[in-house]
């Protein structure tokens, strides 16, 4: 399907906070109750619509375990948006946010929009981090904040879409240079103006007869 923009996202945060589940809920509208540890980097994609414009979100789901950091870090580059996820039922995942934030700021572009996500809001009884704490952390670090549940899908759409809106606004404001792919934004094929020799002018395509997944 054709799109006006492609935004690249990364999802980061401690292991088990529900990053893969958030992605699965957003792309497939499904929930996976069993923890399938991510052992590298996976990705998914979905089309959304903002201001009547088709926007393709390419989302990179990274492994949260410390031992995979060396692999996952290289995927931060060129992301326009990041979902920094913690688990409201596990305080330590909230406490690790600072180190994740440092990592992200260090390896990605300065303009990257970061959305702070307190996941598993459905497990109210087991909550260890209040929403106020989440909010004040976000304010302190100039992040957007939201609590979600990958299980009930509460706020999941909003998390991804609001991030996209933020990015889109930054484009409108001229903060993002859309021609520089290092920013994690790509113009859709029909919006491109560059010559044929420009690198990356390759459309995502498949062999004839193949259905697309993203």
């Amino acid at each position, binding site marked *: 399907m054709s799109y006006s923009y492609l935004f690249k996202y990364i999802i980061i945060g401690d292991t088990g906070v529900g990053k893969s589940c958030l992605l699965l809920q957003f792309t497939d509208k499904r929930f*996976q*109750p*069993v923890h*399938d*540890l991510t*052992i*590298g*980097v*996976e*990705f998914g994609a979905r089309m959304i619509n903002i201001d009547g414009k088709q926007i393709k979100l390419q989302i990179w789901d990274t*492994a949260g*375990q410390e*031992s*995979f950091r*060396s*692999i996952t870090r290289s*995927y931060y580059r060129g992301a326009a948006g990041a979902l920094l996820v913690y688990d409201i039922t596990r305080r330590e995942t909230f406490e690790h946010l600072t180190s994740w934030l440092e990592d992200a700021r260090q390896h990605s572009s300065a303009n990257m929009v970061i959305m702070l996500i307190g996941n598993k809001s459905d497990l109210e009884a087991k909550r260890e981090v209040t929403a106020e704490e989440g909010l004040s952390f976000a304010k302190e670090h100039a992040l957007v904040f939201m609590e979600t549940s990958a299980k009930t899908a509460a706020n999941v759409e909003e998390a991804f879409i609001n991030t996209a809106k933020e990015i889109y606004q930054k484009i409108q404001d001229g903060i993002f240079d859309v021609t520089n792919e290092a920013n994690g934004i790509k113009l859709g094929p029909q919006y491109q103006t560059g010559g*044929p*020799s*420009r*690198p*990356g*002018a*390759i*459309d*995502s*395509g*498949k*062999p*004839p007869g*193949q259905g697309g*997944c993203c």
Partner: protein
Amino acid sequence: MSWRIFKFFESEELKDPDSTNSFHSLLSRPNCGITCFTCGRGQMVLGDSQGSLHVLTSFSDILSTSAYLLRVSLVYQMRQRNVIITVGDDEDLMPIIRVWNYEKLTKEGIPTLSRSIPALIPNGRQSSVMVVCAHESMTLMAVGFKDGTVVTVRGNLMRDRLSTMKVVHSESTPGVYATGLGFRQVKNRTILLISTSDAVYTVDLTLKTETKLDSIGCELGCSTMTDHTQDYKFVIARSEAVYFYTPEGRAQAFAFEGEKVLLRWYRGYLISVVYGARGSSARAAAKSGAKDVMTVSVYDIQNQFVAYQMTLNGRVVDVVSEWGSLYILLRDGRLIRLEENDTKTKLETLFKKNLYPTAINLARSQSYNDGLIDIFTQYGDHLYSKGDFDGAIEQYILTIGKLEPSYVIRKFLDAQRIHNLTDYLKALHKKGIANADHTTLLLNCYTKLRDIDQLDAFVTESHSPTFDVSTAIHVCRQANYHRHALALAKKYKKHDSYLLIQLEDLHDCDDAMEYIARLKFRDAEASMIKYGKLLLTELPDDTTRLLQNLCTDWLPRGQTPRPEDVVPDWSDPALYIELFVNHRHHLTVFLEHQISTHTSGNLRDVIFTTLLELYLAEIGACRTPEERTAKEKRALELMQRKNATFDLDHALVLAQIHDFKSGILFLYEKAGLFQQILQYHMEHNDYQSVMATCKRHGRKDPNLWVQALSFFSSRRECKGQIPEVLQHIDEDQLMPPLMVIQTLADSQFSTLSDIKPYIVKHLQKENEQIAKDEQSIRQYRDETGRIRENVKELQTSAKIFQMMKCSLCRRGLSLPAIHFLCKHSFHQDCLQDELEHECPLCYRDNRKVLDIIQRQEQTAGLHEQFHSQLQRSPDGFSVVAEYFGRGVFNKRSSSKSPGSSVEQRKA
């Protein structure tokens, strides 16, 4: 820290079959190590260090060809055609690419060598070939060199023509070498993916652009192309992970650790071979220096598990797939076959380990849909047994449509897991396969949980109902969720239920009224018949008005009439009368309205009768005579209406009960009951009216006068009337005088003087009559005497026939002749056609006499008639006399023969 490991393949080392020209004999030759190995198109291809190319169509069917003088170093099998590309040396440092056509074999069975191209870099630099790859179009080939250069060769590979070689990638960093190549077609662009020892590139051969996808590379043999299950991605393996690429850039990455030796793709599986034993870390493997221990892993990338893993003692040359299996070739000549289990077996393995989610994913990826329901069920059962009811119900919901719902419902009812049960039942409804019991249960759950939101949602559900509406209404109502029941009833037009709830439960008559007013005619009619009584009690005025509309011309409220509604519906008002018990006033209003509206006479008599009853009841309650007069007037007017029809008997009874005089008389008259009218007046001693009645109806029923006579005669004060009555009786001869006298004689009050004129008049008349009769008697007696003499004469004296002429033809008589006693004579011939026994001239008169006699005799037998005539006749004697005359008392068989005719023939 990694994916789960299964054993979905069975391994088997292929031992030597005793054929000489076998695969094993090939492998076990001394000093001729196999250098390269590939497969495809139902055959395996091997190159060896002696320059031979071996093609196996089976393990015992080998075609060996000498391809190079020195050695074969690379083989590449085309898929679309049976063409093999080789790289090898005839002499050192002179690599040559050869294209072998196996579709065209010589008589000796040697394949045709289609092309032979020196593997040179166009600028003349020399380097050995590391990797080769061809495009399936057979017009493009790519060659990767040890110095990192990648060259494309264009031109038909099957024909030995000049070809264009072009450098598409070169390296500036020394020591970097090409390690992998792969073609991809993206729409009409041809893309070449290149891996080197330190980077990954994508080269668009059509647009002539190059992009560096990654700045990490891989070793020789450690890159491959996936199939459609992973979107034809390019994959490289490094010691820390395997990385996937699309022509545009990076895709996913998996941290499969270990120093990689080989990377292959087989039908959705990624196969990697690493140094070291299974489970040992890369570092440990490197430290131990155990280069001869390798581990083969088969990864299911889509479902994220390891399908098979095996550690081997020995160096793996390659892993190829052919003839439906995987083959691991070891340097020492061993060949191990890996055979994949079928899906069912795999699933069973997963079940045993309770790995249901994996089983579900696997079944889905293999399109094993029939088994899925079974997995969901088993998974549900498993979670249920573990007490994970939330999880279990999720699985059971997936079985809807296949698994019998009662199985699930019973389980959760037993466990009193109402929340879960609710979810399940909701899903049943969503799928549209819920029955009435399910609906009942679901609503009971909602009400039990006091889940108003869900109830609301259920009720406002916009699509067509997936449940039994009546049941739903019933359940909501029973649970006192009247508002919901009401909403359902309204939505699905269950008018009856709606009204029932509104009236019986919520007691909102105004709403019910408004609701009915908006219904279509038939519905409104049915509703009013059912609920009219109740509504009348609560809202008598409105209800009466509505009923009036219903019985005249109905138009649902809020609806503008359409042309097809021009002929209005109206209901029979008689249907509603019984609703008005205890509402006499409103019934009166209602009926009056009906009567004044329906003027064309199409109302049933019960309408009028009922209204009359109402009117008369009011009469009874009147206090002043004026009031009563007014009411009576109204009632009478009702009866006198042109279109009025009554049940007369009923009306009469009513009028009598209420002593409604003018009504009674009106009804008597209407019914033709003049006797009763008379009787009525007599009872009320209304002499004038008695008289008037006789005068009015005396013609129709003469008996009235007779009754009047006996009535008046019994009243002292009525002497004055008697003469008039007698006059009428006399005129019409209603009574024999004897009876009149008898009647008056019975009276205590009549005196002889009262009837003297009458008697005198009659005696006179009698006398006159007697005189007349006596005269007649004399006359008849004379006549009889004469006739008797005549008869005597005929019987005793001879008759002389003196006629000279025939009475018919008037000519002189001649024999034979016939003479009749009547003195007529005829030629016999003249009588031919006539009756011979009777005189043709006299028979007509004779016949008349005979007929009279006969008739008299006949009527004499009709006793009935005689008696009735006797009774009816004012003068019985004359009747008896008449019958006597007719011969009632004669013997039967009296006069049969016409005695007046005598036959005589003259011979």
